[in-house]
């Protein structure tokens, strides 16, 4: 993936504490290091987000993964300031969102940020087309342009012919397409997706994930994608942040997280994940020299199945099946390492 290194969305030390005495509670947490239960008892306050700093680069899909109550939805609502942080700041394109006045904030929301919700949150009294054109309507775009734009987006999400239907006439999967189209209609730079596919059944979810990935490749929107499902995060995300109790436990690519979990909590999550598509030859191979010193010269190259260092485990397994010899990893025509069946099996178990 080609990634622009410039960060478009940035959170700096964001804290969110719910409760009437949030300020006091924050002071106490910082000076005395209170935990969740103590904060609740002393200040009747709940920690939503705990000192989160993230950078989302332009064009990437940044997944935030966590179980319910981990603060991921709260965190994402800070980005368009549906929730005000107790401390810290959010920068979009270098501008502090917290410093905007009401009209500027509304302009930011309607032009730069599109949002998709878990429960769709469509407007039941408006047609699909009027739902999609909502952000434009708020900006007083004329009806003709609205229709043109909406019809264009309807085509993108393959809802042709449904423009004049009401949302209640559509199935769950189609409703979420409307939700997605509504977020895309204003052609925003940033997409906030709050567990968009969680309420759908698995087949439809998978279909929508693929469609979204395809769309995303052409549209290159910077996306914050929230999910409670690590599989989904791995499928969707260029990078993944894992949240627990309001704090970020680990940020990294899916391979980094799977091969190198930051703590037990993440390791626990990763345990159940299939590594076939996540681990690559270069990670599991034994370097050629080490192999030869243990097992002797490999001899004639042509008798080995061969793969590149970037091939995933799935591919290596296919190569290894039916071959008595280990898989030879070849980079630029030179053998660099060997993947034995033992290494392959260990890799499938997640050990490298």
């Amino acid at each position: 993936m080609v990634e622009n290194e410039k960060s478009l969305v940035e959170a700096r030390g964001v804290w969110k504490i719910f409760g009437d005495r949030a300020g006091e509670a924050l002071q106490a947490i910082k000076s005395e290091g209170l935990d969740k239960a103590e904060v609740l008892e002393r200040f009747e306050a709940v920690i939503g987000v705990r000192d989160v700093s993230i950078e989302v680069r332009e064009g990437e899909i940044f997944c935030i993964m966590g179980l319910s109550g981990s603060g991921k939805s709260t965190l994402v609502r800070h980005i368009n300031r549906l929730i005000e942080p107790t401390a810290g700041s959010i920068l979009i394109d270098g501008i502090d969102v917290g410093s905007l006045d009401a009209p500027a904030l509304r302009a930011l929301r309607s032009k730069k940020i599109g949002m998709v919700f878990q429960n769709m949150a469509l407007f039941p009294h408006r047609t699909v087309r009027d739902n999609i054109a909502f952000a434009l309507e708020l900006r007083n775009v004329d009806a003709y342009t609205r229709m043109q734009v909406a019809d264009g987006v309807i085509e993108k999400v393959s809802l042709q012919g449904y423009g004049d239907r009401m949302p209640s006439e559509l199935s769950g999967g189609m409703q979420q397409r409307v939700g997605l189209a509504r977020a895309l209609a204003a052609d925003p730079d940033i997409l906030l997706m709050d567990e968009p596919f969680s309420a759908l059944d698995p087949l439809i979810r998978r279909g929508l994930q693929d469609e979204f990935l395809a769309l995303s490749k052409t549209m290159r929107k910077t996306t914050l994608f929230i999910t409670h499902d690590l599989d989904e995060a791995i499928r969707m995300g260029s990078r993944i942040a894992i949240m627990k109790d309001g704090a970020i436990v680990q940020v990294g690519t899916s391979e980094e997280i799977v091969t190198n979990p930051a703590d037990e909590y993440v390791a626990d999550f990763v345990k159940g994940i299939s590594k076939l598509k996540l681990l690559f030859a270069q990670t599991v191979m034994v370097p050629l020299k080490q192999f030869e010193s243990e097992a002797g010269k490999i001899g004639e190259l042509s008798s080995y199945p061969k793969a590149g260092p970037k091939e995933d485990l799935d591919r290596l397994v296919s190569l290894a099946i039916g071959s008595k010899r280990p898989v030879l990893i070849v980079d630029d025509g030179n053998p660099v390492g060997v993947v034995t069946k033992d290494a392959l099996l260990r890799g499938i178990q997640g050990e490298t």
Partner: protein
Amino acid sequence: MAESHKSSFAEFVGSGDEYYSRIFEKIQKSSLEFAHINFAAATGGFAWAAFRANWLLAWFGFAIDLIALVNLAGAYKYSSASARALADGKDFLVDRYDAWAESNLIAAVVFFFGGRFVFGWLADRLYYRRYSAWRIDRRKSSGANASRLAILAAVVVLIAPLTLYRASQFPPEHRTCIKQDRAIQKGEEIPFKNRFDCFAIGEFPTLFWLDRRNEFSFPRNEDGSRRMEVKPPREGLPPISLNTWTAQATDDGIAYLTAFYGWIFDGITAFLRTMLGAVEAVFVGTPWMITAGVFLAIAYKAAGLRIAVFVGLSLVYLALFGFWQTAMDTLSLVVGASIICVVFGLPLGVWVGKSRAGQAIVTPILDIMQTIPSFVYLLPAVAFFSIGKPPGIFATVIFAMPPMVRLTALGIKQVPENTKEAALAFGANPKQLLFKVELPLALPSIMAGVNQVVMMSLSMVVVAALIGAGGMGFIVTEALANTQTGRGILAGIGIALLAMMIDRVVQKAKIAKN
């Protein structure tokens, strides 16, 4: 198993466990004879129930016995009154008192024996239910205990003597007691029995007397403006009660407002009259053929053929019985009042739905408005706007507004939080949020409010005929005053048809829209 069962019976009843174990077992087996009566309970009455910690039954038994005794005391009261009347030579009273004494005596006998019979029948059955409750919660009192009789005796001593005394005496009249109060203030000697009677068995005694208020009047000056004159109360008049004092103060306040702020009420009256004039021009000023045709067309369009036929038949009824003009009068009042209710109720409802302060301020007022009987609204309406149609509309608006406010607020509150969040996330400002999301989603609830307003307006407009609002209600009140039953019933049916027409059309229109 069966043994532990029996032992729990014994543990519960205390003494007499052999008898009660047998009875309870029969109850559990559903084999208790229907005619079964506990004779100990029937004889002992409420004392038995108290002894057995069966308090509900104890109160029931006490109540029956007390009613029997009260009737007995009544019999005594009227027979002695009859004797007195005979001695005073008031023969016409003797027969009446004798008859009352006799009926009281019969009631006393029936209540005592009948009551004890029912009590005996209920005793074991309720005792078993008590046992079931005790099995669930063993802290409930059980067993047989004579000390409970002492509690019972205390209760009886507190309640019975005064009640029986009250039943055996003619209570003093309130006015007699007031006179007696004044005599006591002047230092006269009053026998203890009279003082006690006034305090204990008559109207609740007037505990304190207040000095009379100054007298206010608001005569006109030369130039037509008003001034306020205050005179101290005349000497020598007796003090007044709290009720009189407050009522006078209220009257003075209203008089003050009408004298100095009359222009406000005149302005409102003028506004109401103008508006009503416009509405009446539509309903009353249009020839009946056109109005009827329009009604039918609206009914057909909005609610379909069946309702249109119903509306047509109702209109025929109103026309044939000569109610056309009056019905249109009533309809104009209803429409006028409903428009005002919606115009003011809708924004108020939005405020209540969106703001906590609004809710805290308006909700108690609405509660009061809905609790006060509709007749009472006529009083301030008359006080401020005199009589006629404007005060009628005013009273109607106050009566019919609450559902509009409530249902609008309800509709606004029911808009899902995540739908509002979505609108905000796409950059809606508060006005756009209200008009593009909240109000459209609250519409079904708002329409229900409008329907309620129309119905309540109609019922109040009929009542408002009492203060000269005219219309169908006038025919009913007139019929009531002159006992023209037939005429009144015909008008009543007309009102009912009017209400059903409006309701059906509005309801159907709502359903069709959804």
